[in-house]
């Protein structure tokens, strides 16, 4: 709240009707697209809680499709997202689930990329267009997408985290929040790093070059 900009109060410019059920949904699946890191061939959405109950009336289904196609919350084509998907040759499906979620506005997004790679993202719209990503490929994570966020899939071994933070320090990128998640000891792990400065493609390749044990890196 302290950092609220005047444009958080007078704004955002958005396609209605709801900041949580429409604008938040667009942002959620837009970030899922970035996590997938490649062109989307197919996307399947499951809506839970209030998303499932009032999603159709709020255009949540259209909003999710729009986001996965790369649209922003103020895109005037959100209303026609299903048609745009068809024109782009992207297969989409939406399911409204009765299953009770932990958070009222939850969506599960399964993306099949152009190379056939499958990425599964679970996220919530937490109000006012703000969101939270809570799961990537079955692994619990947590970030908001408010800041530039560096997501690194890495080996769970000593030194990886230190190396990454060292390189970021040398690049003069300040870490605002950082979290580490793993399936189990020595298994697949993720770190999410929210930064004050953008992490440019040059910086990303430098991190990949200088740090050992990284399997995949992307910025959302």
């Amino acid at each position: 709240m302290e950092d609220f900009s005047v444009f958080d109060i007078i704004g955002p410019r958005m396609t209605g009707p709801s900041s949580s059920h429409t604008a938040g949904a667009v942002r959620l699946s837009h970030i899922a697209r970035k996590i997938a890191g490649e062109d989307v061939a197919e996307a399947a959405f499951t809506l839970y809680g209030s998303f499932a109950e009032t999603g159709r009336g709020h255009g949540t289904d259209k909003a999710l499709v729009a986001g996965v196609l790369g649209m922003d919350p103020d895109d005037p084509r959100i209303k026609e997202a299903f048609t745009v998907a068809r024109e782009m040759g992207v297969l989409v499906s939406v399911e409204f689930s009765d299953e009770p979620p932990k958070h009222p506005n939850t969506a599960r997004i399964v993306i099949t990329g152009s190379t056939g790679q499958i990425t599964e993202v679970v996220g919530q719209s937490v109000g006012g267009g703000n969101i939270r990503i809570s799961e990537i490929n079955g692994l619990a994570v947590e970030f908001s997408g408010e800041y530039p966020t560096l997501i690194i899939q890495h080996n769970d071994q000593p030194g990886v985290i230190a190396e990454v933070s060292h390189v970021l320090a040398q690049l003069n990128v300040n870490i605002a929040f950082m979290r580490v998640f793993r399936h189990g000891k020595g298994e697949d792990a993720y770190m999410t790093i929210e930064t004050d400065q953008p992490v440019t493609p040059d910086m990303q390749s430098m991190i990949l070059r200088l740090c050992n044990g990284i399997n995949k890196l992307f910025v959302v």
Partner: protein
Amino acid sequence: MLLSEAFENGESLRRYCQENDIPIYEAMIRREVKLSEKPREEIIAEMQKNLDVMRASVDRGLSGKVESVSGLSGGEAMKLFKYGKHNPFSGYTACRAAASSMAVVEVNASMGRIVAAPTAGASGILAGALIEAGRQRGWSDDTLIEGLFTAGAVGFIFAKNATISGAGGGCQAETGVAASMTAAALVEISGGAPIQALDAAAMAMKNVMGLICDPVAGLVECPCIKRNALGAVNAMLCADMALAGITSLIPFDEVVSAMYAVGKDIRVEYRETARGGLATTPTGKAVAQRVKRLQGN
């Protein structure tokens, strides 16, 4: 007083404005320049974009029938606008502002573009009242933009010291805050002092304190669209009262605190969950069933 201390509450903002002999919008612009580290012109240009979208949404809702995704709303703004040309009880200006406010929320419900102010559900009030007032008084875009910054400052203090979400504090936190923001903006660009702007904001909130959020079928349509109409008129009336020299017995900051306390006391059924109020009337429930069937096909 430092700029960083100016936005603690209404009183600190008033003192900062007094010490520097500036209006509220000027303080808000200075804060934004400092926070964003962007030049002033860029910030003004960004607000101009908001104003352009606001104006376009008013025009669109008044120029033709817009239908919501659910089919529950659309076309009523236009009806009121036409009717308002012939001596309406609420007065020419108020009636047009109300119609303009409804226009924006109808556009919102049709998945059109709007500016949340402070939320999408309350997006009609500031846009409708400010643009209509500007049309009648011949205010330039520069003047309207100043009003938007004043409104932003009042909304910011509600966001910081209370809440601006229906889920957090009911409809008072959405259409109530929007009316407070708008009242302050109208006062300042009419030449009122910061304290008069804050008094207008306080009065607008007092008028709707306790208002619950009970959307039929959980959608931002009924009663939201008509409550935006009320919000625009509420804002204009309170601006007039403040400009007439009427003060608020309860100071702005105490109204903000009271609104927050009331908001937390409002049961969850009445905070955007569609589990009480109009949403659970026999008709409200029937409409929700109808919308749900629409979802099934």
